């Protein structure tokens, strides 16, 4: 523990291109990019599948398949094609971030009480309007839970960037291992853990501020049974 503290508090760790701030920014960049690209794919797909109720089985199968892919294998595979670029890491992060976002979005939309959907149509809303004005807001807690779980996994996994010569906080773990510097290894791991916790806290706040308020819920008599906990499909 003493070595970790010593490493974390030494001033050389806090500046320069291989200091903690620079590595932290790289790590956040990889993670944010991974979640963003995954969202570009998984969010529309989840909305469509949830709304139409079609393709649910293949989405589930694909998600389970991608969860079974060994991340490190994938990284090395893409590395062979695109060495020393961000691609190997990006592909791996997107692949692990898609399933939670896709499945939670789909389930969130699908779980909405059909009477609410009918009411929306009855008021003369088109399919698009019903989706955007009624279904998405109601599914929001579950969608956010999907992002929350994806982000946690992505932050933890982004450490593998260092395996293929990129930066990020994994650098400390790999470089520390190569010279048997236990302070650097556990210091790096600690920073990753703190980053994951901060992201987790951020989502918790976001979920609280966007989630259905107690008052508004009471007013929505026909509100759907929204599960707050994450759905593991």
């Amino acid at each position, binding site marked *: 523990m003493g070595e970790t503290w010593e490493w974390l508090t030494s001033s050389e760790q806090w500046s320069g291109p291989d200091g903690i701030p620079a590595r932290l920014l790289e790590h956040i960049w990889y993670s944010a990019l991974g979640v963003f690209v995954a969202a570009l794919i998984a969010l529309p797909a989840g909305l469509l599948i949830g709304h139409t109720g079609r393709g649910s089985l293949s989405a589930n199968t694909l998600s389970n398949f991608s969860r079974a892919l060994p991340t*490190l294998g994938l990284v*090395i595979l893409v*590395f062979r094609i695109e060495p020393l670029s961000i691609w190997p890491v990006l592909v791996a992060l997107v692949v692990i971030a898609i399933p939670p976002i896709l499945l939670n979005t789909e389930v969130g939309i699908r779980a909405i009480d059909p009477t609410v959907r009918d009411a929306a149509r009855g008021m003369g809303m088109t399919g698009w309007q019903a989706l955007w004005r009624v279904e998405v807001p109601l599914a929001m807690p579950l969608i956010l839970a999907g992002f929350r779980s994806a982000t946690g996994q992505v932050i933890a996994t982004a450490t593998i960037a260092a395996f293929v*010569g990129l930066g990020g906080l994994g650098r400390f773990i790999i*470089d520390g*291992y*190569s*010279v*048997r510097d*236990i302070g650097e290894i556990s210091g790096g791991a600690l920073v990753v853990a703190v980053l994951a916790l901060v992201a987790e806290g951020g989502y918790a706040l976001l979920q609280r501020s966007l989630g259905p308020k107690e008052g508004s819920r009471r007013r929505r008599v026909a509100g759907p049974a929204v599960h707050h906990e994450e759905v593991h499909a």
Partner: protein
Amino acid sequence: MKKVLWLLLAAVLAVGIAACGDDLEEGDDSGSTSTQSEGEGGAEKPAITVGSANFPENVVLAEIYAGALSAKDFDVSKKLNVGSREALFPAMEQGDITVLPEYSGALLAFVTEAKSDAKEIGEQVEALNAELPAELTLLEPSAAEDKDTITCNKETVDKYGLASIEDLAKVGNEITIGGPPEFAKRAGFGIKALKRVYGAEFKKFQPLDVAGPLTVAALKDNKVQCANLFSTQSAIPANGFVTLEDPKGLVEAEAVVPLISKEAATPEVTETLDAVSAALTTDNLKELVKRVEVDKDDAETVAQDFLSEQGLE
């Protein structure tokens, strides 16, 4: 506690590397590892744990040591692909590993923090036997040499007219250099020594792997212009890479030599490993490395073939 953590980490990394699909040998710790032998010179044969660093040549050498000792009915276990010298050396001191294929110059630089001037193999071995911890010793060095090199791709050599590491003092600030992570930190051959001896500083250091597929790919792709490769690697001529000369003798001699715990160095073990060292030459070492790195043959098979060719079984 710390020891356990290290072993866990090594295991996790070994599994991870095996999962990459690379043809790397995993540690073969079958059951009881290092049950220390009682007393020297007794009829009891000491149990031997052969270790290796995380690059193919060292793994093959360890397999050769292990194969030769197994042939003499020693109880041999293997801990291969453990990591760099920084991770292996403490494991040797603690007796978790009892035999390790080492390199005279690099080991000396490690043990003395690059403070020794010994250049010839004989001097190096002498200096090492004086500086090594009491429980470790070297056996007879082999004629096989594998030197650390600074090797650049053709493009870079042509562009800057590079021939020697000295030339990097002028153009180093335009060059990204690649190497294993420890290259940036160790006192021996690495960034620090290049600056100290040649005054060469680089635009950037790119941490890669130990002269492995990452490094070769990065050099080929010109993502790094120069990198730390080993002189025995056929990837150098095969890709038209050029190894820079080392006129100031930063890496002068680098003989393959077994590092062994004194407890395990019984006359019979010494005799067996000396016979292996006598059979090794730089040329047959290059051939061994090529079979593992290029032909992707299994290190254990390559080692067995070598032993039967040399009549060491």
